[in-house]
């Protein structure tokens, strides 16, 4: 009877306590932990940034996943028990967190001011990690003639069927206004007025029943391929990779795309502050910065990196698609107005 022996040894509690203690010992020097949205992105991070960084500096680094929610950062910062060192995120969590004092204010550090970041690529707490665009992808063979602009997602008459949209007011409100006839240059001015916000939500209301909301960037290709939606907004790299690597029968539409910069932030008070800065600075080396696009067509954030981008990925990078139809995402707007809009959006979407 093995159970008897287990208890016979009389070490029930001893064993469990030992095991617990052994594993709970906070690692004396915690590995540098870099956090991004998971999936392919994390794999690319490991390949082009973490691996070479460790090789270069001897500092070991690990990846973790988050979904952009600030609560964990806040809990960590307030309890002083910080396990994340470098956060990669879209602009709004970094900006909002910055105002709440959750991130180190490193925007004036010469490490970054002198790195040659593109315009808008450096804020109080955020250091540009990559550029990306929100585009539209649709499954071939459903419509005789596919959608021609991202804003066609609001055209349920020409293109009936369920459509995928990110479950966030970010992009959705801007696109709603453009689809409703607001000029690209006036989008943020309009959205700054209560009437503009009402107008955007009213436009969203017209397609609410047809929307399937996605939250993670891996979802749009999956939703398209499983037939849940006929078209979906998507980050440009996810759609491009699905087409090139995974045999997905999709077409990407760039007209009216929203181009944005993703940022690194450093949770305030981390013991690995120096290593974190070192890591971010490392990713800003032009060649290193450009390497990301070899695996995922997100664009570099330092000007000098342009020279190292492989020519065949250029057409898939957001930079090539910035024109008078496309909107440049305004992180500053979301930092000041985001709270109210996010709150309104969450209650709207849950009804």
């Amino acid at each position: 009877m093995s159970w008897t022996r287990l208890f016979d040894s009389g070490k029930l509690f001893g064993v469990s306590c030992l095991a617990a203690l052994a594993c709970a010992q906070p690692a004396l020097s915690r590995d540098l932990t870099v956090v991004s949205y998971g999936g392919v992105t994390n794999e690319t991070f490991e390949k082009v940034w973490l691996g070479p960084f460790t090789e270069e500096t001897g500092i070991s680094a690990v990846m973790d996943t988050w979904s952009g929610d600030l609560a964990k950062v806040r809990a960590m910062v307030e309890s002083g028990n910080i396990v994340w060192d470098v956060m990669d995120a879209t602009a709004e969590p970094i900006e909002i967190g910055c105002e709440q004092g959750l991130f180190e204010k490193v925007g004036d550090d010469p490490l970054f001011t002198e790195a040659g970041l593109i315009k808008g690529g450096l804020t109080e707490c955020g250091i540009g990690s990559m550029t990306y665009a929100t585009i539209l992808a649709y499954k071939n063979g459903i419509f005789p003639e596919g959608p021609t602009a991202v804003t066609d997602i609001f055209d349920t008459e020409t293109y009936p069927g369920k459509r995928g949209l990110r479950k966030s007011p970010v992009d959705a409100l801007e696109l709603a206004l453009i689809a409703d006839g607001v000029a690209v240059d006036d989008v943020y001015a309009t959205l700054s007025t209560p009437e503009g916000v009402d107008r955007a939500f009213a436009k969203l209301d017209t397609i609410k029943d047809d929307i399937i909301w996605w939250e993670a960037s891996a979802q749009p290709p999956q939703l398209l391929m499983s037939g849940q939606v006929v078209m979906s907004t998507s980050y440009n790299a996810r759609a491009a990779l699905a087409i090139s690597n995974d045999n997905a029968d999709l077409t990407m539409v760039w007209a009216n795309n929203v181009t944005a910069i993703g940022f690194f932030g450093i949770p305030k008070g981390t013991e690995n502050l120096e290593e974190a800065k070192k890591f971010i600075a490392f990713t800003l080396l032009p060649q290193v910065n450009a390497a990301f696009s070899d695996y995922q067509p997100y664009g570099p954030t330092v000007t000098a990196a342009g020279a190292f981008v492989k020519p065949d990925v250029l057409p898939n990078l957001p930079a090539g698609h910035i024109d008078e139809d496309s909107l440049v995402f305004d992180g500053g707007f979301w930092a000041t107005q985001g709270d109210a809009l996010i709150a309104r959006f969450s209650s709207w979407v849950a009804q």
Partner: protein
Amino acid sequence: MRHYHDLPLWVRLPLYAFVALALAMMVLPLAAALPISLNVDPWFVYPFREFSLRWFEALLSPRWTGAIVNSVLIAVATTLLATGLGTLAAIGLANPRFPFRNLVMVLGLAPLIVPVVVLALGLYIFFGQLSLNYTFIGVVIAHTLLASPFVVITVTATLTRFDFTLMRAAASLGAGRVFAFRTVMLPVIAPGVGAGAILAFAASFDEVVMMLFISGPQQQTVPKLMYLGMRENINPTIIAAAVVTIAFTSVLMAATYRLNRGK
């Protein structure tokens, strides 16, 4: 005992058909979904372009193997703690002189009834003050909270069939409490304790809500990766992991079945 044979055929046939359909509803989705793990493309649709083991290979990545090791470590620690606490408590509760027995029993089962998300929120706030969030101990405590009722239930059920005269007999033969517990009670109730331990293990091994609230990057587990995968990195690796998990829990289930059969 086979009293359904008393039913006429016109009742029995539709009854069987209905039950078969209901059970099919339970089992068939699994059967239909698991082969997706062999699809070469990352899409969850039939037919496949090609078969491939790439998603099983993906399970061998450090991310997944680390999660498997974590899951097992956490589940083992949880099992030991929950089994120890739960078994002792069940033995205490078996004593009719236990003060406020019903109330304590309700308390012991409460972690099953209170919504996990509420417990998780409470622990999250409470652990924040103790700096137990994102620690191995915190996760084990949370899992033990959820797993201990299973041990209390199974051991209590076993103890209702336990003849406490055996303990008196052992005492009359000169055995002290602890010796009698080890040599007489524990071996006799071992199947119940074992079943409780397996349930506790399974409860911890499958748990995801608590993990979402209080686990940190050092405590990634298989269910947490699966959940994140379903939201963030949707590809058949999750299903490959499911295949492995199902194989694993089937072994556990067979073990419980054997333990329950006796000896």
